């Protein structure tokens, strides 16, 4: 008996106790305690059923921000600012905003990847190391597209389209990267050339480089196609005045023309200077446009005194031109002004050559239309205004006006090309059928309507 008891697994004494007397007071107190416990339970249950509304609701937070839908115009602005601040990676900017890039870049058998965009903050992501070059040419935006061959996975064409703000900058960047021996095709609205596996084109404010992976025929065909697509798809702008002077009037090689928006000929003060090479020795004309005769004369003076004389010695003067002989290269340089235009020559082999050549330039430059120069000057001061805030108030204002106009025109130019996709996409496969079926669908859907509004 005792052993069973001893070996019970659990407690052996149970409720056993030894008291002999019980008390009703205890029961009463006990009942009060039980009542308190019940009240506690009720309180806990009540608390549970009444949560803090803030704890689980997030709506109020969001709706604080704007209980209405963000107006679509605003959203567009946000989206633009976002896609600017974002790198290509974020899907939004990658896949929807083509910007001014013409459609139909891919030919049969090639396909186009989404357009990636980079602004000056993110440019390094794409072309780390080279961005300083494009920034010196007033870089605004880079559109990057890659074409790949559907069959040959290794064949591709990478297209970089730089928006450099002005045609002068675009040409400048172009001429800086152009190999010395190419002969570009030039029209009134642009300039382009095809290299072995590359195509370069300047059209308006855009400078486009397309580099293929190799020199095979298909790639070349694509490059040729790209040249026409960009020539047609981007609005051209007439070439700067210096091209008129050098190419149209003097008959020089457009492939030799250079442009430096600043620090021209390594002179800190020299801005917006066009140069053209005359011969193998590196003799160059240089020209710059200024607002009026007085400033032109002053600038010409500056070229001589602050520029060339720093590197050489005076070598006489005639006809108002102070010739300078370079101390190291033994070449001759001279600068003068014609109306609002500064003209000059440097690295001439000898004084005679210099005198003759500059004379020719001078007489030709006289014939330049005044309006052309004024436009050029306006464009220059505008792009300077962007760079330096301390530029003269008057011209600064003018600059920002011009800027706005410019932006506007780009916008107008970008939008239609986006809408133009239909005809542009004619080359893509599967399109022919869509004509009939799609036409009934072309009325804007309510959603689409809203977007346009």
């Amino acid at each position, binding site marked *: 008996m*005792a*052993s069973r008891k*001893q070996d019970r697994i659990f407690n052996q004494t149970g409720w056993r106790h030894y008291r002999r007397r019980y008390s009703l007071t205890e029961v009463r107190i006990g009942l009060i305690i039980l009542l308190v416990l019940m009240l506690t339970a009720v309180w806990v249950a009540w608390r549970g059923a009444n949560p803090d509304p803030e704890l*689980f609701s*997030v*709506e109020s937070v*969001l709706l604080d*921000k*704007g209980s209405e*839908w*963000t107006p*679509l115009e*605003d*959203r567009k602005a*946000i*989206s633009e600012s*976002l896609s600017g601040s974002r790198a290509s*990676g*974020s*899907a*939004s900017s990658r*896949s*929807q905003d083509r910007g001014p890039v013409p*459609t139909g870049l891919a030919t049969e058998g090639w*396909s*186009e990847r*989404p357009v990636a965009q980079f602004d000056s903050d993110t440019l390094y992501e794409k072309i780390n190391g080279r961005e300083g070059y494009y920034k010196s040419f007033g870089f605004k935006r880079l559109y990057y597209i890659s074409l790949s061959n559907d069959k040959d996975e290794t064949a591709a064409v990478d297209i970089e389209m730089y928006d450099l703000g002005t045609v002068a900058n675009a040409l400048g960047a172009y001429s800086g990267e152009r190999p010395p021996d190419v002969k570009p095709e030039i029209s009134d609205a642009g300039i382009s050339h095809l290299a072995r596996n590359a195509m370069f084109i300047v059209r308006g404010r855009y400078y486009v480089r397309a580099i293929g992976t190799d020199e095979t025929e298909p790639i070349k065909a694509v490059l040729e196609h790209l040249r026409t697509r960009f020539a047609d798809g981007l609005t051209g702008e007439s070439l700067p005045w210096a091209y008129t002077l050098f190419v149209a009037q003097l008959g020089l090689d457009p492939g030799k023309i250079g442009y430096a928006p600043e620090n021209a000929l390594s002179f800190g003060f020299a801005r917006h200077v066009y140069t053209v090479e005359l011969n193998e020795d590196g003799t160059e004309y240089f020209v710059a446009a200024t607002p009026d005769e007085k400033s032109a004369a002053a600038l010409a003076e500056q070229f001589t005194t602050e520029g060339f004389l720093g590197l050489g010695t005076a070598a006489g003067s005639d006809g108002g031109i102070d010739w300078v002989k370079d101390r190291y290269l033994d070449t001759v340089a001279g600068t003068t002004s014609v109306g609002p235009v500064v003209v000059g020559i440097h690295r001439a082999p000898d004084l005679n050559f210099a005198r003759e050549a500059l004379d020719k330039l001078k007489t030709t430059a006289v014939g330049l239309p005044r309006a052309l120069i004024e436009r050029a000057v306006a464009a220059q001061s505008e792009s300077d205004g962007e760079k330096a805030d301390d530029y003269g108030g008057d011209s600064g204002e003018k600059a920002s006006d011009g800027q706005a106009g410019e932006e506007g025109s780009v916008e107008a130019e970008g939008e239609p090309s986006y809408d133009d*996709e*239909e005809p*542009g*996409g004619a080359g*893509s496969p*599967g399109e022919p*059928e*869509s004509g009939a*079926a*799609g036409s009934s*669908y072309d009325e804007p*859907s*309510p*959603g*689409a309507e*809203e*977007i346009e509004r």
Partner: protein
Amino acid sequence: MSDQPKNQSGENRRSKSRTDSPVEAPSSVQAVPSASEYTGDDERQYTLANRRRFLKQAGVAAGLAAGAAWTSLAPPSWPLSIRDPDGERGKPKKDILRLPETGFAVDASATAPVLGVARGNDVDAMVRAAIDNIGGIGRFIRRGDVVVIKPNVAFERVAVLGATSNPEVLQALIRVVLSAGADEVRVADNPIESPEACFARSGIRKAALDAGARLFLPTSGSFETLHVPGATWIENWPFFWRPFRGANKVIGIAPVKDHNLCRASMTTKNWYGLLGGRRNQFHQDIHGIISDLALMLRPTFVLLDGSRVLFRSGPTGGSLADVRPGQTIVASTDTLAVDSFGWDDLLGRKGEELPAYFAKAEKRGLGTTDWRSVSIKETQVG
């Protein structure tokens, strides 16, 4: 511990008292009298008792030995044998499940359009109209059906942010399905973020329960390995099986979303939420995976919920600025066609090349990526 000796002495006391007791059966060793106390007849009795005890003990020992030998040495096919000569038997065995051969699709109809588009603002009417445009709910749901509805509840976002299915649309769909006589509607998804939080925050939990559906949240025991014949990557992959147990119809309801990697997440990508396991490896070939998803699940029909369009920053969004109203709901039996419609019409990317998974899935004969080539019916409501 000090009470140990006391206990022992107590034990002794008790065992003595036990021998005194005539009722106690001599069942233990202690109860057997020691040999020195006996002589003569007693000795014989003692020997007998001893022999009996020996036989008993020998029998138990032999039985245990034989049992152990049987279980470990008998050939594996014999009963009660647990022999495993090459280690194969001990490996865990996974049940591999399959979905029905033809998926959950109903018979194709010659007359009903493939795409049913409804435009407007009244979500209830749009859901009905869209389904009516592809033949009406009666074509798809029969009395007694058990229907799984798969919304996209991937993220813990409120509905207005467009990262998840619109709960109002879901609710309308559940009501329509129940009105067609379905026995049970199950709402299931395996979100990326914490399931409880995702279902609650997105409003899907409330919408589903209010409309009378059953909610299935993933737990570690909800998944079984699913065999998808012909799939590139997910031929055998953990599948959110629990809601599918006994179900015979599947409806997908997906929002229209931009996606950072696969560019667009719509009805096809929506099946992603039915898989478990190491989904974070899917991104290494997302297009291949999505076309596998299309192969894995052929739904009864899908609803593309264009009431809101997350047109950028997808798939998570997070700002109202990423969302615009789409005022469109599309029903379809072809996930590729409806997705290509969404790409052109709702995401507004007409003219851009479709993401690669479309072509991959089309190549497998899982649908048409050109919605213009399929029959379509559109209604304006509300």
